[in-house]
Every structure is written in structure tokens, then in C-alpha cells.
């Protein structure tokens, strides 16, 4: 089995698909943390909210309605959260932030349960992406290829914005030293708000994209939280490159671990996390330095 080229192609695509999903989630979280030094544990709940919104909207407007509107809905929710909770807790220190956002997770789980019920929801893959595509000798679901392509597109767009535009330069300045950036006349508060909302929208997008592949359940946000945190800790807090590296490492270790070393699979990623923390406490590609 392992000498078959098709096996490696298939599992590599599986790994890439998982990596890109995690990338969409972790990039928002990591930039929010890097820029605002704010620990948002409820990021997974925003992802779940995105998936539920996508599932509901898909019933009315079709898949693409959910795909485009769910991230906007999550961004709107993010804006509400920002003005009610996040802004006032910005300087409250990590402990208060962790407690508040951790509490938000439970509120979110029960809120989704009240609104959408306990039973898992599923939505269909859009008809354009139904079926499989023959690729290097394997048949691979087109929708999964779409997830990979979407992740790469978002990565390209973010790289472009962060490295080539004025807003990107301001964000990078804010991550490096927010007080100095403020002294130079950058409205750091407004930039924080912008980044937070975009991060939320990306989490919502991840939820909308994941909904047809996974089932939409109230605890999906909680399930994805730990992988996302592992990704940003391995990659290094606050950096785009770190989020990419962390997602790829997690995706490949998880996928190939599951098929090649099934007995150790659950331990593998945590062992790697521990190794990174011991040798590179800042993560592999941290934002500063």
C-alpha cells in the first residue's frame, strides 16, 4: 500500500485539505493575538456559528448564499462582541480575557442548541463541485480540491495585503510595537477593530466551507479549538507565515499519523507541540525578532 504512488497523492491531498481548513481558522486567531495581545478562545464558536449560518442560509438561498453571507454574519457578530466585551477587556490582562472568552464558548454552545436544536445538520455540496476529479492517478472529490484552492487564494490575498499595501504595513507595525505605531499617527484602535472583524469573517468562512464535509453540531466549535491553538503555538503567535507552517505541520502529521502510525496518532501532535515548546518556545516562525 505504501509503495503505491496513488496512496501518497491521496493522503497528501487529504493533508492539504485539512491544513487549509485549519489555516482559515488559525490565521484570524493568530493575527488578533499578535496585534491585540488578546486571547480569543471563542474563535471556535465563531467557526461553528459560521457553519450554522451557512447551513440555514443554504436552505433558503442555496449553497453560495450561505458561502458569501455566513462570513458577513459572523463578522457582524464579531463587531457586536468587539464593542460589548472585547474592547473593554483589551487591557484587562490575559486571565480575564481567557475567562470571558471561555465563558462565551458555553454561551455559544447553548445558544446554538436553542436556535438550531441538538440534532446535527448536514448540507449538500454545491452541484458544481459534486463528484470526483482524476488527478495523478487518483479520484479525488472536487469539493475538497476547492477547499485547498480557497485556502491558497486566501493565503495569497492576505500575503499581498500584509506585504504590499499601506494597511498591511500599518498592521505589521502594530504587531511589532503598537505604542510606537500609535505615536507615528496610526489609529491603532481602528486597525484592531478591522483586524478582529476580518479574523471573525475568516472563521465564519471556514465554518461555511467545512459544513458540507463535516456535520454541523453544537460542539463543533469546541472540537476545533484545540487543533487551532496547537497550530498557532507551533507556528508562532501573530505571524501569517507561522499560521501557514503550523497548519501544514498539523495537517500532515495528523493525516499521515492516522494511516501510518495509528497507535500513536493521538499522541503524535502533542509530542510535536511539546518538542516545539521546549526547543523554540516562541514557535517556529514568530512575528517578532
Amino acid at each position, binding site marked *: *500500500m505504501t509503495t*503505491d504512488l*496513488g*496512496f501518497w497523492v*491521496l*493522503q497528501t491531498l*487529504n493533508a492539504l*485539505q*485539512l491544513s487549509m481548513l485549519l489555516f482559515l481558522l488559525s490565521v484570524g486567531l493568530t493575527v488578533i493575538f499578535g496585534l491585540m495581545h488578546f486571547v480569543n478562545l471563542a474563535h471556535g464558536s465563531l467557526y461553528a456559528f459560521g457553519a450554522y449560518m451557512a447551513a440555514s442560509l443554504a436552505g433558503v438561498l442555496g449553497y453560495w448564499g450561505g458561502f458569501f453571507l455566513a462570513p458577513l454574519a459572523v463578522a457582524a457578530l464579531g463587531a457586536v462582541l468587539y464593542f460589548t466585551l472585547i474592547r473593554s477587556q483589551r487591557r484587562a490582562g490575559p486571565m480575564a480575557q481567557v475567562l470571558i472568552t471561555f465563558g462565551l464558548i458555553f454561551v455559544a454552545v447553548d445558544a446554538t*442548541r436553542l436556535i438550531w*436544536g*441538538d*440534532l*446535527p*445538520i*448536514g448540507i*449538500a*455540496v454545491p452541484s458544481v463541485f459534486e*463528484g*470526483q476529479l482524476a488527478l495523478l492517478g487518483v*479520484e*479525488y*472529490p472536487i*469539493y*475538497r480540491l476547492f477547499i485547498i484552492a480557497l485556502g491558497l487564494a486566501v493565503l495569497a490575498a492576505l500575503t499581498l495585503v500584509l506585504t504590499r499595501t499601506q494597511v498591511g504595513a500599518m498592521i505589521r507595525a502594530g504587531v511589532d510595537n503598537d505604542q510606537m505605531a500609535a505615536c507615528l499617527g496610526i489609529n491603532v484602535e481602528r486597525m484592531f477593530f478591522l483586524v478582529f472583524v476580518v479574523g471573525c469573517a475568516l472563521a465564519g468562512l471556514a465554518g461555511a466551507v*467545512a459544513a*458540507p*464535509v*463535516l*456535520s454541523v*453540531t*453544537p*460542539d*463543533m466549535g469546541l*472540537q*476545533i479549538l484545540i487543533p487551532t491553538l496547537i497550530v498557532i503555538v507551533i507556528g508562532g503567535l501573530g505571524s501569517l507565515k507561522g499560521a501557514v507552517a503550523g497548519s501544514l505541520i498539523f495537517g500532515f502529521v495528523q*493525516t*499521515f499519523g*492516522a*494511516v501510518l502510525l*495509528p497507535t500513536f*496518532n*493521538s499522541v503524535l501532535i502533542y509530542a510535536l507541540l511539546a518538542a516545539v515548546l521546549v526547543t523554540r518556545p516562541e514557535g517556529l516562525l514568530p512575528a517578532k525578532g
Partner: protein
Amino acid sequence: MKTTFKAALAGLAMSTAMSGAAFAEDIKVGMLLPYSGVYAALGQDIDDAFALGLETFGTDSGATFEIVREDDEVKPPVGLAKTKKLILQDEVDVMVGVVSSGVLGAIRDTVDGAGVPLIVANAGNDEATGEACSPFITRISFSNQQVNRPMGKWMVDQGVKKVFTIAPDYAAGRQMIDAFTTAFTAAGGEVVGQEWPAFQKTQDFGPFLANAKASGADAVYVFFAGGEAISFVKQYDSFGMKAELPLYGSGFLTSALYVEAQGPAAEGVITALHYVPTLDNPENAAFVAAFKEKTGRIPSEYAVHGYDSARALVEAVKAGATDRATLAAALPKVSFTGPRGELRIDPATNNIVQPIHVYETVAGAEGLTQKVLATLLAEADPVNGCAMPAAVN
């Protein structure tokens, strides 16, 4: 002298029994179900159907039933605390419920020690009617091995010689698959590979599906439930595997409760379960109609557990049971024909003995429906280390 004493005692017992029947008896039922948490929908189905069962069968029993509800939150410590409350504070005569096998394991000793009869309305772990069996615990739902074992021989008979199995890596997953593979290999089949994805940590089954595809199997046999079942069935279909590698499994995979969320991906999947809402018998027709009327939903296998639990309780009361001790003695003796078919309790283990229905999920006029392919005869589970002591209080 001795005989007169015995006769007097018998007379006394008779008169108490008769006075019990003469007055309207009040039976206090403690319902221990998850009303919140991941299994809340299951708890609701059981609760609704239990109430329906009491309405349907309980009116002419001469007894009134009072229900005390407690939420076990699917957490073993919470379940244990609520059990103690029901037994000590509410002083219930009988307990009904328990969805999670973990909760059942946690409350087993308390229920057994207090001598309170418990009707298990879902939890399927083999131990509860195996090595940990109790004269006070009667299971009216199913056991993990029971729903999977008959499929082993049936699939070999259908010409499936080689299977690949996939199930989550926890006790129920192992018990379901092991029961199937034992029967499958005994009937001459071969298991060519197995995968055990981490339970509730695996969202993407793609990596495992690739292995199944490469294994050279004739078919894949799986067990998943709830959200994982939906993800699995959809992903299996998205890889286009259904055509070349038919999907079989434990019937929870395509439960009527959530098959709609799987959509067309579930079409053609063949599984076995102790109940599907499309079973063709008068008892089931009456049950489905009454449940739909009451709740607007189609009854699931969980609902039928609640319905039959109520019926078993009523039958025990009709047989003269009035309190904890007499209910515990009467419950394992009940037998009736319900929506699932002919049911009885195996006296060796207090587990239910029931037919298993093989069904295919097919597209019907109103969405997906279950087409029953075969009904496999009821057989009692092996005793599995259960030494049933007499019920002593």
C-alpha cells in the same frame, strides 16, 4: 403445625396482594435522561415515547404513574448524584432511562445496592447484561453485540467474503465491531483490515477511506453515530466509493433520527438495527401514527425504547407488582409483541431478546426511508460472565 403456618403465611400474602390490586396503586417513576448535552435529542425522543406508552397501555392497569424527571447531562458523576436523589429523596419505585453507557456504569452499583429496579431505555454496553448484570437492571433497548452479530452471517450469505471495518476507538465501537467480525469470520468471511479513528477527535475520515479502498475488500462495515455518522456517510460518498465498495454497518449509522442530514449520500447503505420506523406490523403502524400525532416527528429507535419501557412497566404492574421488590421480580418476566416484533427478557442476563432488521436506506416519496431487506431471528446474547443472583432486599 408447619403446614398450617405456611398456609397462614400464604393467606396473608394473598390478602396483601389483593388489597394492592383493589386500591389504585401509585407508581413513582424516576426518569434519568440527558435533557441537555450531546444526547438531548435522544433523551427527548425516549421521554416523549415513554409518556405515550403510559397513555396507551397504562389506563387500564389500575395504577397511576407519577414521573420525576432528572437530567444526567450525559455525565457519569451527575447521573450518579441524580440517581441518589431519585432513590433517597424522591423514593421512586422504579427508574427508567440512561442513554449513555458511561452513566449506566456509574450508577450500576447504587441501583443494585438500593434494590431499585432500573429499566434501561438505551445504553447498550455489553457488560450491563454481562459481567456486571444485576437482578434489578432490566434492559429493554439493545446490547451492542446484539445488533451487529446477526449481520456477520447474513453478509456472508449475501456473497460478501472480505470486509474492511471502521469504527471509533471507544468501548461501544469495539464491542459493535468485534461482535460482527466474530460472527463474520465464523461464517467463513475474512476481515482484511481495520481502522479505529480517535473517538470524537476525528472530523476527517479521508485518510481512513483511502486505506479501505486499497485493502481489496468486497465491502466496508462500520459503526458511527450522531455527528460522526453524518460526516462519515457524506465523506464516503464524496470519494465515490459507494459504487465499488458497498457500505454496510450497524444501523445507528443511518438512524431515522438524522438520516435526512446525510441526504442522498445515505442511499444504498445497508445496515442492521432492532427497529426502523417502516417495519410492517400493526403494532408499529399504531405506534408511528400515535407518535407523529403527539410530537410531529417520526419515531426513532430511541423512541421505541421509551415506548416499550412504558409498556414493560405497565405489564409488570398488571402482573401484580406494586413496589421496588415486586417490580424488580416482575420486570424480567414481561414479554409482548411491540413495534419491534416479539420481545422477551432473557432470564440469564435480564437483556432483551428481539429480532434484528436489516434495512437499506432508499429514496422515498417524502425524503429518505428505510426498506427492510430481512428480519433475522431473535437470539439471546451469550451469558458473558453474568451470574444472576436472586433479587434480595
